């Protein structure tokens, strides 16, 4: 699919390659610099928790809704989470409306894995009546503007919304809308750090133009205690073992930085 849009970016990707070869990025950042992160919380009154994340010009909004549902038959004493990402057609000329495409599915599943596998939410504590009723925490993100690195943007808005989330009040296992019983308990804060291979260089937090020039992408979800809970390689290119080693070390560092920023923005109120 070559739209006019794509051709322009293709031409720009040559410039991107040239500049990154010299260790500089088009926007003046160093290879391992993130764009400025900004988080706003309480974006939606009706959500149980919500946040908007900006990474440079990339922007996503996440709302958390907790509902009471029947547990899965194979885990009767556990609640669960559901992570979705919607690439809104208003966010980019290349996004179309309709059911989620491959890109959106991969994106939401990687964000999901980082949170699920780190056991950020204790599924046992989400159980209400074993085999009958449990909490299901829906974490739905909407991409508002696509300026690159949607993986990390959606991960950050999802985590911020979870930190902002209050547990709805229950009466006889029915939700009383508008009343709450304290904050949702989180055991850790997994953060995605996504790398791109452009030429022979590794960069973090790609811009839209850089994503057109990259050969492969690699995401790592890290959390407290130098552990990681998800890896995902994407794109047609490859990584060597030593490149992945390097990415993991950087991801621990960047994860810590982003986590402390996240706490500053989303930690306090509500």
């Amino acid at each position, binding site marked *: 699919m070559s739209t006019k849009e794509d051709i322009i970016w293709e031409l720009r990707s040559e410039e991107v390659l040239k500049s990154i070869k010299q260790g500089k990025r088009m926007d003046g950042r160093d290879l391992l610099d993130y764009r400025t992160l900004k988080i706003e919380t309480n974006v939606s009154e009706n959500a149980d928790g919500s946040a908007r994340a900006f990474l440079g010009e990339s922007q996503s909004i996440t709302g958390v809704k907790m509902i009471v549902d029947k547990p899965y038959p194979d885990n009767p004493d556990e609640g669960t989470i559901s992570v979705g990402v919607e690439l809104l057609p208003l966010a980019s000329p290349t996004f179309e409306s309709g059911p989620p495409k*491959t890109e959106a599915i*991969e994106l939401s599943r990687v964000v999901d894995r980082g949170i699920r596998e780190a056991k950020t939410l204790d599924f046992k504590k989400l159980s209400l009546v074993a085999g009958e009723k449990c909490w299901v925490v829906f974490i739905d993100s909407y991409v508002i503007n696509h300026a690159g690195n949607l993986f990390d943007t959606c991960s950050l808005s999802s985590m911020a919304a979870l930190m902002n989330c209050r547990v709805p009040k229950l009466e006889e296992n029915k939700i009383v809308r508008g009343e709450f019983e304290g904050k949702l308990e989180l055991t850790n804060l997994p953060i995605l750090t996504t790398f791109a291979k452009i030429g022979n260089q590794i960069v973090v937090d790609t811009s839209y133009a850089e994503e057109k020039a990259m050969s492969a992408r690699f995401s790592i979800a890290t959390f407290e205690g130098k552990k990681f809970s998800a890896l*995902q390689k*994407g794109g*047609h290119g490859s*990584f*060597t073992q030593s490149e*992945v080693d390097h990415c993991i070390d950087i991801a621990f560092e960047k994860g810590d930085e982003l986590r402390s920023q996240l706490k500053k923005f989303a930690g306090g109120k509500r």
Partner: protein
Amino acid sequence: MSNKNNEEPVYVNKQGLRLDGRKVDETRKIKITSGVLPRADGSCYLEWGQNKIIAGVYGPREALPAHTQDPTKANVNFVYRMASFSVPDRKNPKPGRRDIEISKVCGEAFEKTIFLEKFPNAVIDIYVEILDSNAGSRVAAITAASVALADAGIPMRDMVAAVAVGKAGGHILVDLNKDEEDASDAVDMPMAILPSTEEIVLLQMDGVITKDEWTKAIDLGLKACKKVYELQKNALKEKYIQAESSKENKVE
């Protein structure tokens, strides 16, 4: 996830053997046969432990509808699907989010190795059907697809060999089976490489690991992939040895 009512089993015993008697760096039994589908341009049947997989390759052929054509190269269309009877509970045959994600990353694993630039506006369709499964079906699918592509005579820089490594009960293991994947601390890390250069073309992981565990896992994985590569080559040679011997029989 399971085992919640009973004690965790001992995943590696004092003799260094696993639940099914394998060593930590040992894969399950792998059997590969190439050229099994007469209509396909290339094909492969693969058994990997309980996993049973059939892969068929068509192409390069014209990419349709026309708007999917890329004038600079061929597209790779990798379709991973599980038969409804291939899992303990019946699977809804409609492709789910998991099937779609696996198809995407598996297709990407082949983009570097195939000479796609030789076939503008074309598509190479790789259809993989999982007939029976027990952990590690996506790496088995890649391994089978790679043989089917070679069988179809599609020019490639290298084969793609894949294996899953991971963790169960604190041990780093190669090629986890379902029982091991059900460990409470289980880590599943599917990977695929180009064996001659060790370039990593697919890497995923879920579960919690440290950097040291990762290093151990990737080293075991690289070694196991190279063994899989030998089996792939043998399967491809086998087809010609058989063709050659049947020709000789006719001469007699």
